[in-house]
């Protein structure tokens, strides 16, 4: 199938994985092998022992994302995969940002941090480390502002997501939709 980049969107997908050796490596090599354009990826514990939860964002058209999800779902150690794009969900990401400051710019930076409800978690004579939590857009705009000072080091976790309302944990049955929605 030919893919038109102008129809590409960013999709947020959650996958529940058995916490066993090699599982993450299998998932990552699948993304590479199938040429899926992964923008971010965050993995950690879920509410269930032995099950980790992976949130990733992938860029592509609907068919490409459907493929990514099905290929993931096919993995023996993948318990469930869900595309939460377009669903009511909360998405959060954390960033640590080291900003270069001097006596004049320090108050300005602190003010920005305040406005964005971020916090300062480390201070030295010529720099501050800002911790910010929020959705991707919010972090993007804060980082853009801070980069004027400038930013000398930064790390972002990549977004994690949770759908609103009912619990949607590792136990749900997401494997193999019976009929492919067309």
């Amino acid at each position: 199938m030919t893919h038109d980049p102008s129809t590409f969107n960013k999709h947020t997908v959650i996958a529940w994985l058995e916490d066993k050796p090699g599982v993450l490596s299998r998932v990552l090599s699948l993304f590479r092998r199938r040429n899926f354009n992964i923008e971010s990826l965050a993995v950690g514990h879920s509410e269930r022992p032995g099950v980790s939860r992976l949130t990733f964002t992938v860029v592509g058209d609907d068919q490409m994302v459907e493929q990514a999800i099905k290929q993931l779902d096919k993995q023996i150690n993948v318990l469930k995969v869900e595309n939460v794009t377009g669903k009511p969900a909360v998405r959060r990401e954390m960033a640590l940002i080291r900003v270069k400051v001097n006596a004049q710019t320090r108050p300005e930076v602190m003010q920005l941090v305040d406005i964005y409800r971020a916090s300062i978690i480390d201070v030295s004579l010529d720099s501050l480390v800002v911790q910010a939590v929020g959705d991707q857009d919010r972090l993007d705009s804060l980082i853009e502002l801070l980069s004027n000072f400038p930013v000398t080091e930064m790390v972002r976790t990549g977004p994690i997501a949770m759908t609103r309302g009912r619990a949607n944990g590792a136990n749900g049955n997401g494997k193999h939709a019976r009929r492919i929605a067309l």
Partner: protein
Amino acid sequence: MKRTGAQIVWEVLTREGVSTVFGHPGGAILPVYDAMPAYPVRHILARHEQGAGHMADGYARVSGDVGVVTVTSGPAATNLVTALATAMMDSVPIVAITGQVPTTLLGNDAFQETDVTGVTQAVTKHNYLVTNIQDLARILREAFYIARTGRPGPVLVDICKDVLNDETEFVFPEKLDLPGYRPYTGLDMDAVEAAAELINQSHRPVIIAGHGVQMAHAENELRQLAEKAHIPVAMTLLGLGDIPETHPLSLGMCGMHGEARANKAIQESDVLIAVGMRFDDRVTGDLDAFAPNAKIIHIEFDPAEINKNVPVDVAILADAKEALQALLGKVNPARHQNWMAKIEEWNHESQELDILNAEVDELIPPYVMRQLWHVTQGDAIIVTDVGQHQMWEAQYFLHDKPRQLLTSGGLGTMGYALPAAIGAHYASPDETVWAVVGDGGFQMTLQELGVIMQERVPVKIAIINNGFLGMVRQWQELFYEKNYAGTPIQSPDYMLLAQAYGIPARRVTTKEEVVAALEEANSHEGPYLIDFQVKEEVNVYPMVAPGEAIDNLLRRRIVQGPSGLQPAW
């Protein structure tokens, strides 16, 4: 009862029904070999681990059950990779057991250590590294279960040597717990209804049948559906035999070297029913131009194959047998006379352009293939290698039975035929097995003649010796101005080679000798080798150039012959 890890391997294997294993020993797997003689299994010593893997593959394709291969660590496991990739692409169930360095040395670049699970990740359905004897029986059980269920495939179990030597109480795990693996989906009757409706309204329906039909043993259901709703059946390379090729509704093979009538029928169809196939590019050609007016129904077991290459209108996610049975009850009896007449026109035209013309005096490979069909009366297992001879076999041998043709379709692995034919023999010792192989591919795995010698495997070998890596030469002729760089290939004297291995053999250089040689080989009790020294520069037609629409066919030239116009061979 206490058992060593090595004994547990055999305890589980024999309980899984394994009676034959193909392998090659070495340091890390030695405990498994040491324990072997106490169990009712036969070990076939391959001369190269790739060969052992293809033998297990041939065994699996014929038996319909898991083929088992046991090899040691490091270079042995890496030698196995091609065979695993071959099985993966064609959905063949294999369990590969590899020895690994002791857990204490893992990750230390120890002697003959390779990250085998890492290396084989992309070419196995699943794989395991066993570092604790308590997991061993369960993992082996899971390996068999995963290999043979769902869409089958190879599973590799890499076992550390100290685990093999360790001891524990052996309990056969009756129940498996694989929460992320649920291969059975159950049939969606709404989809079946939707498909039946499309079929009932169609005027130009075509079925494309693939490997999945044979894996599901759904050939009867397929034939019944085709007959009831009057639908012609095109087959993929691995689908040959889904419906008898001599059946009036058979269109033969479709795709890059498919029959013109099959490709044209697909292109002109209004409803296309794809069963157990995955729209490989060798089948579809240019995707944007593929079956432009057809509504597509896809019957497929693997959800990931649906909408992968071709967007479909109705997907039935099920085993082919179950889906076809259900569909059979829903479709109306029909007759499509106009459609069949149209196909017959294409057939007539392609008869003239492509079909073997008996008036050729030279020894051309298609003639050998057609005579092989006559001499065996179509009743043999044919294992082909990769190249021109593979396509000629597909075109000129008429496959009337499923699971009769073994070939590396998805990966196109040269060197497959000889070892896979050996494996096929062990799965069905009473059937005649022919390996049809090019002079290039034969020289990739001919060391397995040693197995034929040692075990007196009665495999018949037809070498189609054209002095070239023929298929590549054909592309050079057609697309690279006959720049035959790297494709001329010399062969050793195959008569001497066969003699060295104690295998009776015959050289055939003229058309007149073909039948007698084939008959002698076919009726001979043991192995037999024939070196067919065929005309060198013959092409496979029809051909769809890569990336072209499948009805855009390159055809054989027509020239003035002794008794009128005839194809130029």
